[in-house]
């Protein structure tokens, strides 16, 4: 059930690529690659003509088989776009291998890497949508987050949004002695819209969903069943974006043959909130509360991934108590997330809301702690560069639970101990007792939505979904951050890759999280009163020039931040690698040949959250 992983991996040095690794590539492609020698940068630059062969060699010869992140930067002064790829080795772990390709801004065409890694599929569509880089050979290069017909490519540095005020915050109209004016008053339309010059709405025909349906195949295609037998029509069905079972504003356009799914296309972007464009205007610390709203169930984990990235760039050390507090909230967040997932997976299976009520009950108790700790239940904004914002409070306030009950003031350490040693293990065992052998759950989940190991790696799946397909890849072990290398825990692995294993692995992970928390509590007591936030506590920090990709193992998968700094107080590029987005790459393959009702369950077991998926 568990694969023991060695605890010997030393501190990560993800910015340095080992020479002997790149030597293979330099020998094989002497003319196609060169090292990236800019100050603060790492990796290699590949010429676009040889990109596909070099990528294949990185996958097969260097064994970096997991392409996690595809970022894209607009270097407007130098006149080119740069696409940055990060690949990892799922067997040995270790830091990323980072390679790049450049294209001129006025003729941005690159070969697609979808033939090498399927995980490039959605990310290349995103790069086309937001940056306008065309990928030749991509099977379905449509806009992803905006819609067909949208004007411009918003993440280009010369593209301006309707409410544009200035390049960088703080805006002069607000600080130091600002008088903010309603942005609506600056535009003739009184709301957040702009149109290209000489656009007239008369005769405008919206593109609509024709492109989506075209990709799914015309509904008149032969069904594959002989006409002499039962005749079934192919039918396109839309689920979402407001369907309650799609966990947010997610839409699946499904082609059905009878009730069997033949094609499935995820349609996303209904919650595209422009995190990246806003993030490039913000100061570094100003982005922290925005990260809360990525995966809004796990705000603490998002905070950490971002804090780790910036801390690495400015070389900030974190005191021990801060690390302990971080692990405390992180693992509690993981428990919240997995409880939530199990509750709503059962919802999707038809046990409407009763299991979820039990899960939400436990979540509320953890949120009481978060509220006492950070001031907010969900949007905690708790991490800072160099520590955390607050130390543990002396008491946790609980609401009255019975008529005539007074609000409770509970000792914080006692509250945490009750949760970790008593309440949460019992709740986990309760789930296990009532659900795991449940006939409906077993028959609907066992053998349904199988994700084979090789497909999972090719699709760039990360987190519990990848581990349920038999890959013991956990960033807490493979590229350790914080103090995870001092802690004793197992990487949970399951080998069947079906929905049932994806359910079981969540239970395994909850138990491992509790095991970690049990090691944290005595250390928290021993370090009481120590420093919890080192470094400068100002609102602005300056980050040295350079790039960095920081990542953490979030409950949903690998959350990564690719940040490029130009030495000022605002990030030049702020790219988020969202696990939810990349984890839906395999959705079609998992659903093909199954019934509509199964697709809902499979989606539920993938655990997506739309705030992060659409950003």
């Amino acid at each position, binding site marked *: 059930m568990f694969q023991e992983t060695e605890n010997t991996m030393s501190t990560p040095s993800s910015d340095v690529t080992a020479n002997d690794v790149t030597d293979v590539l330099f020998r094989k492609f002497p003319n196609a690659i060169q090292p990236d020698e800019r100050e603060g940068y790492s990796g290699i630059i590949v010429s676009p003509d040889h990109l596909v062969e070099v990528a294949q060699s990185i996958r097969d010869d260097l064994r970096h088989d997991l392409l996690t992140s595809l970022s894209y930067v607009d270097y407007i002064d130098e006149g080119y776009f740069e696409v940055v790829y990060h690949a990892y080795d799922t067997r040995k772990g270790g830091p990323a291998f980072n390679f790049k390709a450049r294209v001129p801004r006025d003729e941005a065409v690159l070969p697609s890497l979808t033939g090498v890694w399927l995980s490039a599929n959605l990310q290349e569509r995103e790069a086309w949508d937001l940056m306008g880089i065309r990928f030749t050979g991509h099977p379905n290069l449509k806009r992803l987050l905006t819609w067909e017909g949208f004007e411009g490519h918003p993440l280009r540095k010369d593209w301006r949004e309707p409410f544009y005020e200035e390049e960088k915050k703080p805006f002069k109209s607000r600080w130091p002695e600002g008088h903010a004016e309603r942005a609506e008053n600056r535009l003739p339309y009184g709301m957040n*819209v702009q149109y290209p010059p000489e656009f007239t709405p008369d005769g405008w025909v919206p593109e609509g969903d024709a492109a989506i349906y075209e990709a799914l195949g015309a509904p008149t295609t032969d069904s594959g069943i002989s006409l002499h037998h039962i005749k079934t029509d192919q039918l396109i069905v839309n689920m979402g974006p*407001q369907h309650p079972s799609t966990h947010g504003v997610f839409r699946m356009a499904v082609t059905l043959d009878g009730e069997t799914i033949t094609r499935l296309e995820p349609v996303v972007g209904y*919650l595209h909130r*422009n995190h990246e464009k806003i993030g490039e205007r913000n100061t570094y610390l100003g982005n922290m509360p925005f990260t809360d709203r990525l995966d809004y169930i796990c705000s603490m984990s998002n905070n950490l991934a971002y804090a780790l990235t910036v801390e690495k760039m400015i070389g900030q050390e974190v005191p021990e108590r801060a690390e302990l507090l971080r692990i405390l909230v992180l693992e509690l967040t993981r428990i919240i997330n997995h409880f939530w997932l199990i509750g709503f997976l059962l919802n999707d299976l038809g046990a409407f809301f009763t299991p979820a009520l039990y899960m939400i009950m436990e979540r509320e108790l953890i949120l009481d702690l978060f509220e006492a700790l950070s001031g907010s239940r969900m949007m905690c904004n708790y991490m800072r560069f160099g520590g955390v914002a607050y130390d543990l409070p002396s008491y946790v306030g609980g609401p009255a639970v019975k008529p005539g009950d007074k609000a409770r003031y509970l000792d914080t350490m006692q509250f945490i101990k009750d949760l970790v040693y008593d309440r949460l293990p019992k709740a986990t065992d309760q789930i296990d007792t009532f659900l795991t052998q449940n006939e409906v759950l077993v028959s609907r989940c066992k053998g349904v939505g199988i994700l084979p190991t090789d497909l999972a790696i090719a699709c760039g799946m990360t987190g519990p979904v990848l581990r349920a397909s038999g890959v013991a890849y956990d960033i807490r072990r493979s590229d350790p951050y914080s103090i995870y290398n001092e802690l004793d825990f197992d990487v949970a692995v399951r080998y069947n890759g079906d929905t049932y294993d994806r359910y079981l692995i969540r239970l395994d992970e909850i138990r491992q999280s509790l095991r970690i928390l049990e090691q944290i509590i005595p250390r928290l007591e021993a370090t009481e009163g120590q420093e919890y936030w080192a470094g400068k506590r100002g609102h602005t920090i300056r980050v040295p020039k350079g790039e960095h990709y920081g990542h953490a193992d979030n409950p949903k998968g690998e959350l990564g931040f690719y940040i490029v700094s130009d030495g000022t107080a605002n990030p030049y590029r702020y790219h988020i690698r969202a696990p939810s987005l990349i984890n839906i790459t395999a959705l079609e393959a998992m659903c093909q040949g199954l019934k509509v009702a199964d697709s809902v369950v499979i989606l539920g077991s993938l655990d997506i959250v739309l705030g992060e998926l659409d950003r």
Partner: protein
Amino acid sequence: MSARRLTANTMSHEVVSLNNPDYPVPEELRHNVAITTLDRIYNWSRSRSVWPMLFGLACCAIEMIAMAASRYDPARFGMEVMRPSPRQADLMIVAGTVTKKMVPQIVRLYNQMSEPRYVIAMGACASGGGPFKEGYTVVDGIDKFIPVDVYIPGCPPTPQALLQGFITLHEKIEGQSITTVPWYRKGESEPIPVPVLGPDLIDVRQTALIRDMASQVSDAPEAVID
């Protein structure tokens, strides 16, 4: 922690009692007979069985689900029955950031709800764009398209704040009168035109304005209207 009352035209704070004791009821019938006005019994029953639509957009939807769970228990307000179909729902809780890609669907859902219908803008984003207001695909408040009855501040509002919003809505409902409500007037109510996705979101009510602006391209960005 609690949301303040934001609607202007709600009734005053007096508790609306169903039974109106001004009318003499014989002593022996007091416990069996209630004399009231049609408005009061109609509003009393409506306000205690508002069915919200089961539909969430973003972070606020998580707090909405938490509100629907056992600790906050909306069944106390007769509101625990969340209907996924707009045809069966009385109340749309716009819980989260409204994007330009999503707003045509929201307007369509609103048009599909049968009257009387109410809208709660839950959280900063639905009320006015919130932290994402400056974003290029974010609608700066759902009230640009559909009428909103109660605004709840917060990012996200706590479940308590949402309950406070419900209480405010109940007060509003109890202040309405059959003789003046729009849905008993003659004729059909006009549906709200569904916006169109063009180069940017096109509110079809602004078509003439967009055409005008296109003809005077040169000074378009500086133009200001009061």
